[in-house]
């Protein structure tokens, strides 16, 4: 293996954001914002150059640090997955950067404050660490990248420095540290077993035996704790409750994608032959549980911000459905193909749509001075762009036409039908209906006629609102992937009766669910009982000792499914 032409771009993708952080730190004050914006432009350019380079080469872009090839040296690699994520993240960062100028700008004549300064530096730090996660070709570098990502993400939770946000940040940090130490333990075991941590070399050497099983179980569990997959999600809802909108967008759209991406790397690239059918089913099962429970809990929220936070938890579950679908039973191993493409597309459309949704909610919060769902009536007339953004990103998350998530769902459904796992088809369809339920709920509240004309506390920057809308539209535009890398047959006829029926079913079913669960007390007694049960189950699982025991249990279950069901 050698450094390919343009390999240096990978180094720049990591280095440029961190150089931005250091410059911003030294120059300080209002310069931090200028440097951040410059760095964002440069970084987006680098991401595009890497893409062009990847397409030219027709294969992975590689850079060997110091010219030493693995196992002695460390390689940076950007394959198709990395390039796709690099570009998606660059787009989201651009959107968040433009949006945040309104919240975290320092106009001339105003004293600079600490929160904007910290925000801009942390935004760059999150970006640099994510790029490192995407291009690392070595499990230990990935560990360092993951830790950097956590260190950059935690302070975003407590930008305003209030007691409860500090507490949320500390919870997040300690739980994430538990996750990363489990990951490190797994990496250490792999080194002990196979004498290398390079992904490509490990993939060739690793085979099903106790050390690989232990490592897989520990690393997967650690990463799930950082991704906040059910039941390891104790840190996420409080983290979002007090964070500013732009910071929430970073946390939800970007930070959790880092550890998720690492699970993908681990399962698909490092040990596709070690994982078993039942362990993939377990991972998908946790995802399905997340979708069901958190969608219902989202419907029971009183605050828009927390509704979106729970929707993030549900969507994280959706991202894990691709693992069982990618399992090739005949070959007994994970196999990329349609399911992997679908999962990646889902992640990209979630990143863009969820960032847009949090930013729209932030605009609504700023304008009204609160974000209680019952007080949203009339906001659609006052802030049409933000409500439109919410609707568009909702469509993008639901997976109805025309959106990137629609293609993703098609690919995943195709994989489910192809591998005969009909039960996942049900989960995928139900996921769409559940997503549409809370989108419909919010839109119905926002479009309602207000009792009295609402008064806005603050006028909202049109540029910021448009940035959010642009991101939401990007999520729809991902559907254009059907014109390029994906098979064209995916959208044969968007107006076919079956497509229209599925659209109506999704939205109509969502409306019914919103009607049943969204009002309190509900007109349907059973809905109140079920909703209450899910909410209290969520509360129990989020208690620290329960979450800790769940963590051990999940690790044990992964171990068992890897060993016994072979």
């Amino acid at each position: 293996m050698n450094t390919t032409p343009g390999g240096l771009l990978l180094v720049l993708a990591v280095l440029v954001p961190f150089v931005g952080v250091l410059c911003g730190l030294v120059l300080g004050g209002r310069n931090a914002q200028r440097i951040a914006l410059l760095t964002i432009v440069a970084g987006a350019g680098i991401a595009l150059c890497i893409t062009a380079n990847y397409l030219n080469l027709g294969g992975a872009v590689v850079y060997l640090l110091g010219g030493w090839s693995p196992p002695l040296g460390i390689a940076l690699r950007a394959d198709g997955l990395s390039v796709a994520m690099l570009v998606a993240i660059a787009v989201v960062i651009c959107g968040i950067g433009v949006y945040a100028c309104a919240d975290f700008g320092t106009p001339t004549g105003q004293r600079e404050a600490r929160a904007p300064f910290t925000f801009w530096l942390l935004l760059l730090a999150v970006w640099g660490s994510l790029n490192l996660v995407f291009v690392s070709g070595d499990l230990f570098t990935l560990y360092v990248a993951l830790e950097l990502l956590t260190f950059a993400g935690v302070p975003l939770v407590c930008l305003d420095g209030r007691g409860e946000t500090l507490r949320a940040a500390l919870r997040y940090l300690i739980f994430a540290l538990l996750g990363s130490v489990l990951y490190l333990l797994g990496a250490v075991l792999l080194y002990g077993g196979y004498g290398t941590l390079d992904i490509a070399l490990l993939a060739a050497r690793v085979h099903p035996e106790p050390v690989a099983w232990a490592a897989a179980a520990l690393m997967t569990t650690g990463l799930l704790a950082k991704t906040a997959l059910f039941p390891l999600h104790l840190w996420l809802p409080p983290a979002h409750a007090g964070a500013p909108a732009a910071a929430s967008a970073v946390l939800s759209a970007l930070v959790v994608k880092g550890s998720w991406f690492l699970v993908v790397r681990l399962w698909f690239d490092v040990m596709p032959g070690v994982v078993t059918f039942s362990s993939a089913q377990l991972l998908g099962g946790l995802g399905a549980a997340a979708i069901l429970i958190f969608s219902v809990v989202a419907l029971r929220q009183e605050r828009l911000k927390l509704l979106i936070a729970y929707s993030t938890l549900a969507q994280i579950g959706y991202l894990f459905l691709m693992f069982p679908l990618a399992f090739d039973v005949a070959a007994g191993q994970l196999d990329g193909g349609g399911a992997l493409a679908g999962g990646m597309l889902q992640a990209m459309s979630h990143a863009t749509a969820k960032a847009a949704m949090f930013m729209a909610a932030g605009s609504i919060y700023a304008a009204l001075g609160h974000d209680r769902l019952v007080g949203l009536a009339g906001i659609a007339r006052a802030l049409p762009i933000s409500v439109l953004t919410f609707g568009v990103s909702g469509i993008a998350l639901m997976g109805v036409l025309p959106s990137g998530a629609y293609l993703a769902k098609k690919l995943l459904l195709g994989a489910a039908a192809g591998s005969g796992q009909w039960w996942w088809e049900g989960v995928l369809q139900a996921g769409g209906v559940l997503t549409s339920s809370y989108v419909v709920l919010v839109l119905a509240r926002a479009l309602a006629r207000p009792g009295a004309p609402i008064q806005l506390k603050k006028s909202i920057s049109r540029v910021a609102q448009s940035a959010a809308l642009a991101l939401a539209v990007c999520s729809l535009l991902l559907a254009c992937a059907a014109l390029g890398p994906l098979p064209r047959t995916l959208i044969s006829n968007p107006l076919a009766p079956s497509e229209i029926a599925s659209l109506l079913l999704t939205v109509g079913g969502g409306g019914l669910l919103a009607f049943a669960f969204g009002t309190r007390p509900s007109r349907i007694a059973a809905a109140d009982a079920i909703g209450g049960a899910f909410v209290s189950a969520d509360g129990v699982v989020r208690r620290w000792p329960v979450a800790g025991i769940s963590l051990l249990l999940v690790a044990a279950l992964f171990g068992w499914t890897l060993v016994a069901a072979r």
Partner: protein
Amino acid sequence: MSAPTLYGLCAAVLIGFGVYGLIVNPQPLRKILAFNVVGSGVFLLFGAIARRGAGAGFGGDPVPQALLITGIVVAFSATALAIALLLRLHDEAGSVTLASDVPPAVPPAVAPDADAR
């Protein structure tokens, strides 16, 4: 029992203690210390692996030792960040419990003054 095996077993015991402490202790400071105990266990295990995997007349495999140093630095920075947050939390809230923060799914009617604080 060879020395690396003994050290490996010690590492396992340390990791077990640490995980127990992380789950059971409600105080954040103890959780941070427990995290450090788990970290020490992992580093000790890595040291034992370095010893076992040594070849070519070396006393130990140098690669894990290089990684270990990095790991220790990362764990140290994590601890520092956690302690800084803890001190700040103590200044702001006057107590350092992690348990009571759970914003109930039905928040106690978030008053419109939530942003005025």
